[in-house]
């Protein structure tokens, strides 16, 4: 396997993990603009563990993710009191605070960055990414997924139906933060160096864009979105800024033509459920062709 191809695959796997981190809260109707902050907690947490206590990365990365989840738990109670745009801005503030805090922590290298000596290769990165995908898919096939979908579609109705809205939103928020932490840990241990500036608002925005482009209706959306928008720029030769121009223009056009994202429940049903094709113009009761 060529070095270039391997590099693209690693990037793809990490982006997919990040995308699922943003997807979980979005599936419950919450826009988390602080994903990069939670990724940073996972990255620095796991790197510190593997560096200082010589813990194997395969163990350190999940522990780092638990740190990210823990931070999310701490901020979830006050932050999730806010709603809509206020929630998005509160998560944005949390992400910025995490980044700023790392810049001020000497034992994490501050502004100079943090070199990571332990290394994980492509197989481990792919393994973690696959595990995240499988866990989220399984989770969304259970009552948890159905409840989240109900909350996303209409919070008030879900509440009336007896869904514990706040509980599910908190769970999705914390779980999403932990998943983003895994992505951060993978990034730290593959690229052997992390700096606070990498985990900026631009990263959070790109991750959220992957998910919304893929579509939030199904658990396949983040996978498709992250894959298409990681690989598409790679196909375009040319300067890095030109790739971003194409990416951004693609987002604008796609949002104008297909605001629900590339992949919707109806699309999946049309593609894979031959017995019950969707009727055009009729809203779908459920994603499973019933």
């Amino acid at each position: 396997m060529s070095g270039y191809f391997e590099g693209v695959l690693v990037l793809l796997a990490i982006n997919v993990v990040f995308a699922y981190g943003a997807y979980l809260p979005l599936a419950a109707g919450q826009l988390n603009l602080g994903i990069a902050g939670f990724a940073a907690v996972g990255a620095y947490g796991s790197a510190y563990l593997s560096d200082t206590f010589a813990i194997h990365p395969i163990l350190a990365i999940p522990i780092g993710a638990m740190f990210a989840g823990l931070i999310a738990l701490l901020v979830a109670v006050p932050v999730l009191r806010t709603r809509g745009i206020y929630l998005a801005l509160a998560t944005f503030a949390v992400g910025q605070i995490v980044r700023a805090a790392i810049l001020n922590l000497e034992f994490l290298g501050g502004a100079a960055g943090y070199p990571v000596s332990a290394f994980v290769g492509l197989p481990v990165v792919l393994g973690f990414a696959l595990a995240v995908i499988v866990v989220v898919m399984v989770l969304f096939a259970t009552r948890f997924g159905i409840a989240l979908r109900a909350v996303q579609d209409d919070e008030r109705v879900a509440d009336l139906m007896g869904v514990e809205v706040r509980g599910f939103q908190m769970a999705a928020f914390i779980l999403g933060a932990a998943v983003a932490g895994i992505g951060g840990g993978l990034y730290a241990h593959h690229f052997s160096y992390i700096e606070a500036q990498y985990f900026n608002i631009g990263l959070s925005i790109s991750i959220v864009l992957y998910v919304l482009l893929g579509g939030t209706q199904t658990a396949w959306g983040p996978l498709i979105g992250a894959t298409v928008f990681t690989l598409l720029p790679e196909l375009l030769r040319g300067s890095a800024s030109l790739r971003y121009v194409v990416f951004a223009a693609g987002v604008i056009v796609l949002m104008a033509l297909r605001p629900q994202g590339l992949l919707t429940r109806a699309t999946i049903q049309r593609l894979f459920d031959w017995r019950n094709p969707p009727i055009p113009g009729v809203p779908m009761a459920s994603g499973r062709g019933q």
Partner: protein
Amino acid sequence: MIGQQIINGVTLGSVYAMVAVALTLSIGVLNFLNFSIPGLFMIGGMALWALLDAGIPWPLAVVGALVIAVAASLMVERFTWRWLRGAPHFVPLVSSMAFLLLFEHIAIAYWGSDMRVVPEAFSGGDWRIAGLVIGIPQLMGLLCSIALVAGLSWLLASTRTGRALRTIAEDPDTALLLGVDINRVVSVVFIVAGLFTALAGILFAINYRQVHPFMGEAVGLKGISAMIIGGMGNIWGSIVGGLIIGTTEVFAISYFGADFVDLAVFGLLLAILILRPTGLFRGMQPVRFGI
């Protein structure tokens, strides 16, 4: 020394305040968090530099930069609010984020990612009063923003367009029923937003004499903080919020160092969001923003 810090804080704060006014107008009237505004700020500053670099005299360069930014703002309007009315609430937000990326990377493609130096606007233009240094650009910036905001409040309170805008802020559907030409009136919001933001970018370029393609991000994020602290949708609140953020930043730098600034500013933002989400002054009710 403290006096000088306050002056520097107010200078920086008036830039944040103008960005915050643009943001707050957009969210107050359209319920739309316009993330392309940091990009418009950058366009204002960089277009000024590019026009001056091409040998165009100062007054024309300023006007040219404003025109370019307003045109960009109207393009954002076409593809966010106008096109996407009735789409899920996050769609305009996402598209405006994409516009921010688009503007930044077009600027890099054209002008490169280096820091550019803007020539001095006024030679020998510092006033010294009782040991304090007040730059003419600084003073001009503050006066400019106060005058513009006064003009904007007059527009909103006393003109036909202002009444139409307030109707749209209450309820766009009702406004449509009452015969308000929504598309025409809404473009006023984007023109004003583009004008304020670009002017802030130009003032920033004159005061600090350097521009680069990512100059909008830090300022835009602090403009968002200023908007929330002042109360979303409250124009005069945004001015106060901008001045608070500006002085907080300057004092944080001088007492704790530059790395501490973001911690102070965004910590303040988070505290306000949790304790008093409507801001210091009466902003809009959070209920309106329920998903």
